[in-house]
């Protein structure tokens, strides 16, 4: 597939340099190495090169990624005014808490019926070569328009949305900041901002990336065995290759159904039932799986490839047939797949951290407490009445702050990494705060008159 975009160094990312390498090259490399793996050898250095993360995110000419544009895109992503009835936003289906999916096989459309396909995750879409399950969009900007206009999805009227946003002084200022060369609310600027935001949704490094970087102990025995199966006998790597674990190609993987997928886009019967290979990054958080959401768990996915592929002429030639995998090997494959996801659900840095206010005056004097390594630090604080306690989740996992009376009863809800909980105290006394998720985390707050 020809590449029509010029890739420029954009967002610098952690990882080894791979930017600019074609996926076709990766596939070729993966294939030759899989032959080696199949013959019993395992070339770790080779696979480390194949799966190394890129150093930069791609950025197309004509839509540079700037902080102002990303901030605007993040705001528009959650703005229901882009929809026809003002109730649906991009985030309705692409929920950040669910790794930008929605947890259901197919989201309910405006007509009350399930949509045709599963809501895809948005991680790492900046590296895509085409978008949607059938690849019908050639760019992220073009992609952004379709769900807004689709009558069963957001059923939006972009001209009306432009008028509404232009009449909103705050939104207009955001557009002016994001597009200083064209400081107006326009259809193109809406789509550019949304695309710029999506390009920042880069999945973080995981356990597997630590192995790729040379840490031989990063994967345990089962995970490593699963990896060897993945690139060896199970032949998953034939399609799931490169650092995102996708060849960006379209395959019929033998699922039941009549959706023609890529075949309808190309007008070719030969590629009916073919859908784009999904990335395997952060998949622990995006069940259910496949274009129709019919596979409930990662275990089901492995079982499908091992036992349930429907034979028909369009089934991908890259798909292994009749893989003999025992229960242990299937579990090892799932163990390996899990290493491609963060230990805790990741939240992209481009989404603003939340502040959850539980009373108190935002302008009042504050005392800070951290939550790193499952511990309130410091574990005891002394405040005066009227002062505010600011508890920052500087850990890598979800926390929660709650105080269960007698003088006060508050519960912060989930506090993601980066989120802050502020608690005001208007009565003197001793208050014991805990993390509801990790009840061994204790914080004593002594409030003096």
């Amino acid at each position, binding site marked *: 597939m020809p590449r029509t975009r010029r890739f420029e160094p954009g967002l610098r990312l952690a990882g080894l340099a791979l930017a600019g390498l074609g996926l076709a090259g990766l596939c070729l490399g993966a294939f030759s190495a899989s032959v080696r793996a199949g013959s019993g050898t395992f070339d770790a250095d080779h696979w480390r090169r194949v799966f190394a993360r890129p150093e930069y995110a791609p950025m197309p000419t004509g839509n540079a990624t700037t902080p102002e544009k990303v901030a605007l895109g993040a705001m528009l992503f959650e703005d229901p005014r882009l929809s026809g009835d003002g109730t649906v936003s991009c985030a309705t289906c692409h929920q950040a*808490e669910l790794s930008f999916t929605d*947890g*259901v096989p197919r989201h309910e459309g405006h007509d009350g019926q399930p949509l045709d396909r599963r809501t895809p995750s948005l991680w790492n879409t900046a590296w895509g070569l085409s978008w949607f399950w059938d690849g019908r969009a050639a760019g992220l900007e073009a992609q952004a328009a379709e769900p807004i206009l689709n009558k069963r999805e957001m059923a939006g009227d972009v001209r009306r949305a432009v008028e509404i946003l232009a009449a909103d002084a705050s939104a207009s200022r955001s557009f002016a900041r994001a597009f200083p060369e064209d400081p107006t609310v326009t259809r193109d600027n809406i789509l550019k901002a949304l695309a710029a935001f999506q390009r920042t949704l880069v999945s973080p490094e995981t356990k597997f990336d630590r192995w790729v970087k040379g840490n031989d102990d990063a994967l345990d025995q089962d995970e490593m065995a699963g990896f060897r199966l993945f690139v060896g006998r199970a032949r998953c790597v034939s399609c799931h290759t490169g650092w995102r674990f996708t060849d960006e190609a379209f395959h019929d993987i033998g699922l039941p159904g009549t959706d023609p997928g890529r075949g309808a886009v190309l007008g070719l019967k030969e590629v009916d039932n073919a859908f784009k290979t999904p990335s395997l990054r952060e998949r622990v958080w995006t069940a259910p799986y496949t274009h129709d959401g019919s596979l409930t768990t990662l275990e089901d996915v492995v079982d499908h490839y091992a036992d349930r592929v429907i034979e028909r002429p369009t089934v991908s030639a890259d798909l292994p047939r009749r893989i003999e995998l025992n*229960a242990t090997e299937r579990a090892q494959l799932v163990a390996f797949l899990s290493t491609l996801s963060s230990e805790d659900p990741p939240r992209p840095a481009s989404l603003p951290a939340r502040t959850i206010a539980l009373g108190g005056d935002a302008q009042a004097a504050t005392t800070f407490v951290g939550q790193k390594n499952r511990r309130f630090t410091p574990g005891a604080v002394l405040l005066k009445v009227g002062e505010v306690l600011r508890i920052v989740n500087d850990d890598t996992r979800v926390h*929660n702050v709650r105080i269960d009376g007698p003088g006060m009863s508050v*519960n912060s*809800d989930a506090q993601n990494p980066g989120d802050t909980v502020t608690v005001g105290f208007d009565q003197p006394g001793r208050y014991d705060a805990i993390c*509801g998720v990790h*009840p*061994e985390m204790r914080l004593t707050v002594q409030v003096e008159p």
Partner: protein
Amino acid sequence: MKRRKIWTNLSTAVLIATPAATQAAASPAQLAFAIEARADECLVQLAQHQGHGGAAMPATRDGEGEGGAAELPASLHLARGIAMIRGHLLIGGELIEAGRWKEALPHFLHPEEEIYASLRNDLKAYGVGPFQTTLKALSQTVKAKNKEAYARARATLEERLAAAESAVLAKEENKPYFVLETALETLQQASDEYEEAVENGRIANVVEYQDARGFVYEVDRLVGAVADALAAKDAEAMKALRASLSDLKATFPTPMPPQKAVKDAGEFLSAVSKFELQLGKFR
């Protein structure tokens, strides 16, 4: 580290049921130590656990967090772990039904954060597929307050748990008695949670209260599933078991705790011991 207080009368009951040689060897110092034992040390071997006749699997020690009571046979360790996970799901589900998603979230995070890791080897030993990703997926749906996704993820997890439970039970000769052993272990965990929850006659830690409620109600379900078999063996003892369970359930009138604690920690443990004392009749 959580410390586990052992009720003196219960210790006495255990000693009565312990072979005379063991009693003779128990020095006053050992007894005193047994009254407050570290949660991860097996200082008291409950009589009914001696010579456990389940599957010939190695004993399992726990890590931190819930389930850190003692070294148990793998079968019982796994069964208790499943019961505790179900207890969390039970209370979490109740809270969701009441629209209390915020309150429910910890109960969907605890199984993966505090229990699953200690079950990993047991699952392998019993040839049960891992379900860590399923637990993670479920907790995400609760975090997102997405009821449809939650229902789906919950159903998936229930299937996995049922498969795990079947695998354990399949290797047990005396299934009803094994279920009772599992129930007792789960109740003892509930008493630990309840002790953490109560302070000066009030529920100071709501999450621990809810954990304990979930575990007790899960035990009620477990016992209910084998009630006919138990009643056939000893109807009177079965009545006593039911009475002790009713007493325990009365500790938790609602998913959100009452203003005043219904029982103190000692009373709760006493009710658990009444359950425990019936177990020998079902061997």
